[in-house]
């Protein structure tokens, strides 16, 4: 079974992140960039499926040259090869345009299954599997906490509030994963060495047959008008418990008319 895993490089969610005032896009250049955390679960799931059922795992990334680091990490975990779509004109694309680029790149690959993360930590949109399913006309099984593939059918437990939905669809399909699905492996030393020799195919928009005017800031279907830091909260009150902490808490809630 051939699997493509969509991996996005994002600014580390634990560090200071911002937009670039020059064009109101995510500041990626100066950021501490990492693999989008949930994508590691998608990679792990792909590796487990490949190891059980055979086939190849291909990493697909749309992003600037620096995203090569994220691809290396995915390869060192054990993926077989990668496709890196990088083109100056893609800068500033919104999710809808990015999905067009990913869809075109997927169109040049052979796959039974596409795996991705349930959410990127920079955009927090959780829309990519739906956008791609719509564009590619394949089944969408999003938000998986469990995945099984058997006899050309994918079955997913879609995580919900307080339970799950059991989903079923024929391949090819796109599945997005939550961090409840598995425990991603750490790259081994051997894996890190092997990754250096694995093929990474670079593609431009021209290679995908996409006109530069169809992507980027100019083609975005929405626009950031302005942004600002959240106004700092007023100084809060901090008291030390001297046996009356519980009562003080309740007094505060009462003063706020909450109790």
């Amino acid at each position, binding site marked *: 079974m051939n699997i493509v895993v969509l991996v996005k490089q994002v600014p580390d969610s634990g560090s200071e992140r911002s937009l670039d005032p020059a064009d109101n896009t995510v500041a990626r250049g100066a950021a501490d960039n990492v693999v989008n955390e949930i994508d590691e679960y998608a990679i792990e799931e792909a590796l487990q499926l490949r190891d059980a059922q055979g086939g190849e795992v291909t990493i697909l990334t749309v992003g600037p040259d620096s995203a090569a680091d994220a691809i290396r990490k995915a390869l060192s975990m054990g993926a077989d090869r990668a496709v890196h779509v990088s083109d100056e004109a893609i800068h500033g694309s919104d999710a809808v345009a990015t999905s067009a680029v990913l869809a075109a790149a997927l169109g040049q690959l052979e796959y039974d299954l596409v795996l991705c993360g349930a959410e990127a930590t920079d955009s927090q949109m959780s829309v990519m599997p*739906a956008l791609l399913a719509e564009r590619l006309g394949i089944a969408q099984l999003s*938000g998986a906490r469990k995945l099984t593939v058997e006899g050309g059918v994918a079955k997913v437990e879609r995580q919900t509030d307080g339970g799950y939905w059991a989903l079923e669809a024929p391949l090819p399909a796109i599945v997005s994963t*939550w961090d409840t699905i598995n425990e991603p492996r750490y790259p081994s030393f051997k894996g890190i060495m092997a990754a250096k020799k694995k093929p990474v195919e670079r593609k431009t928009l021209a290679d995908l047959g996409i006109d530069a005017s169809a992507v980027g800031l100019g083609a975005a*279907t929405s*626009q950031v*008008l302005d942004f600002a830091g959240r106004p700092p909260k007023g100084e809060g009150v901090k*008291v030390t418990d001297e046996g009356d902490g519980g009562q003080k808490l309740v007094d*505060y809630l009462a003063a706020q008319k909450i109790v």
Partner: protein
Amino acid sequence: MAEVLVLVELNPAGEGVRKTTLEALTAARALGEPAAVVAGAPGAAAGARAQLAEYGAVKVYVAESDDIENYLVAPKAEVLAGLVADKQPAAVVIPSSPEGKEVAARLAVKTGSGLLTDVTEVTAEGTATQVAFAGQTIVHSKVTAGTPIYTLRGNSVTPTPAPAAAAEETVAVQLSDAARATKVVDRVVEQKSSRPELTEAAIVVSGGRGVASAENFAIIEGLADSLGAAVGASRAAVDSGYYPHTFQVGQTGKTVSPQLYIAVGISGAIQHRAGMQTSKTIVAVNKDPEAPIFELADFGIVGDLNTVVPAATEAITARKG
């Protein structure tokens, strides 16, 4: 005035609609005349109509078919796309649930429209407010193509009644094969709780690693129940097996925006803040006076949760008499 389509989220637990629908109807009024869209199984609209009328739905489009219930996301997007073509609405407003965002995404591709997710406010001119990067950045944005599609973050708009006619119009449901790709075989509820839904609750009490065990989460539940609150948990508490993942608050869990958020034994890591920073009032209980959670707390108590929290629960219960 132009119509604004509002996708209705029915209450999965029984009658009526989810609060998110009332919020969406309220927000939509800034943009035009709300027209509610009920897409569900046969009979779905009957129990929803009264509430939709109370909260300002001038029209109710009723699209009922078993296929809508039996297949994931795509049927609802197809119904909405049909209505967008037919009615030429000024905008589409959808509650920002996982399903809502995915319906919005498919609709954006189908109609060549721009899409803004997790919007907290929208003006008459269509300018949307969004909160980015764990609540650190406030963004204003605008859709520049097609029919603007907004998904509205829960608890960011206060639902206010504005009685309207809610005139029903039946929509014929004819789905493509592509919309029937993913079958919903079963909907399983694992945790039935008498507490309010985490993302909808007015008060949330969350416990972190400091709670120290699954059994000890009874302290958190006790305080929550005395306040009629929902229970949340940090990722460290979830990873340690103290509380189920469904209740995780933060970047990889739920985003909550209640009137009151009480963080107990939680340090306040940026990924946790991502899920609760926009809460109106924040209270923290932590034994470490340097814990970062105190930076955003309106009221903080430096102390041992094992004594402070039960005492607070007792005092609240006593007040209620």
